[in-house]
């Protein structure tokens, strides 16, 4: 069980991504690293903003880290949302593409490119469900 969102959780997630043939096929054309900002919600057990970073290239994740804001700014894409929104995504209660168009997930970078990768995004979300996750507001 890995706490969302820690390096341990990111490591487990990267493992699931790289084991997925479905993601390999869906994201074959994807190039670009993505920084995910999980915005603080002190009342939900997330006292400070956390940046997670995935280097996604052609259906594989070459690296995954918890990083600082300065490094995140250099990523090709950034996706920002409060912790509770990410939790909704992980629990399949918020479709990420719909969330982006509704402004619940804020995207930095070329939004049309991300939206066109709907199969890859869907697969990335499905894979989070395979990570045994402990949410900070449920501890």
């Amino acid at each position, binding site marked *: 069980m890995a706490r969302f969102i820690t390096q341990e959780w990111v490591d487990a997630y990267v493992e699931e991504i790289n084991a997925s043939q479905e993601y390999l096929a869906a994201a074959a054309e994807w190039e670009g690293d993505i920084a995910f900002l999980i915005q603080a919600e002190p009342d939900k057990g997330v006292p400070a903003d956390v940046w997670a970073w995935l280097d996604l290239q052609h259906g594989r994740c070459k690296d995954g880290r918890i990083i600082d804001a300065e490094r995140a700014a250099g990523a090709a894409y950034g996706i920002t949302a409060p912790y509770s929104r990410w939790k909704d995504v992980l629990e399949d209660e918020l479709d990420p593409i719909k969330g982006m168009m*509704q402004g619940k997930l804020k995207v930095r970078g070329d939004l049309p490119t991300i939206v066109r990768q709907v199969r890859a995004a869907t697969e990335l979300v499905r894979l989070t469900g395979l990570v045994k996750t402990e949410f900070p507001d449920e501890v």
Partner: protein
Amino acid sequence: MRAVLFKSEGAVQVGEVPDPTILAPGDAIVRVTRSAICGSDLHFFHLKAPVEPGDVMGHEGVGVIEAVGDGVTSIHPGDRVVVSFHACCGTCWFCRQGETALCEKGRIFGAGLFGGRLAGTQAELVRVPYADVNLLVLPETIDDDRAIFLGDVATTAVYAASLAAARPGETAAVVGLGPVGSLCIQALFAAGAERVVALDRDPARLALASAAGAVTVHVDERNPEMALAALTEDRGADVVIEAVGHPEAFASALDVVRRGGRIIVAGMYAGEVTDLQLGVWWARALDVRFTGLCPVHSWWERAAALLADGSIDPMPLISHRLPMEEAQAGYAAFDRREATKVLLAP
């Protein structure tokens, strides 16, 4: 006369300048009894907009008419008046529509080149052009301390709340609880809003908002987007007034407004830029209205009525009353966010 003069970035000083005189038939000279420091004065204090050493600061003023030009008809020596923070001509197309802040000849007191080099109100005397339209004669029911808010802050709040047009059952949010944001809460309630959510990180300002009847959110303790979501079945606020004038506050307004909601941008902007996801704004069907400067002349009588009947009470906002000679301390306190409103007495 004595006046508060811009000295250098982050510094003002009180010094001697020549008394203003009648330069045009429509002018009046006001002997200032009360001026104030406003959040937007800090733009000039920090040289975010150009001012020059020796420029007289300030755009809020109350006083008594000392002299009028031959062309002034409705204002008379001895009248107690409040000065509109921006001066309009009263006759151009925009003024005739009531959009006086867009006047062809519009100028702003104490705003250097940006404001058309009109000397400010933080002085013993101020020259007011087109005095018939740029001065409001005050009723006895509104004292100087309250009246100072009519020239800018209270009227701006009434204007923003009117644009927000919160309907019964709607949730309004105010981002930033400086003087304008704080009075926006009262103005929203006065206009019929049923629920107002106030967002800031300053406990004293949140306490004032709570006393005014708002639901408060300390943005460092609760994520504002999720706080509004929790209050509105995950939708967000129906209407948001952004009362700061900073890209972060604008982003916060975008975060907390619902799809199809309205954002009233009342905070002042100068050279700031922000990313705009056209597709997302379009898909969210956002209605974003920038107020620009408040057309004070079209709204100050309505604001005066709300001050007179107590619907809007600015008195809790006054944190400092200083002699004009201590203006530097007042600016510094405002800059450190230790002051909510600083009044200056010449």
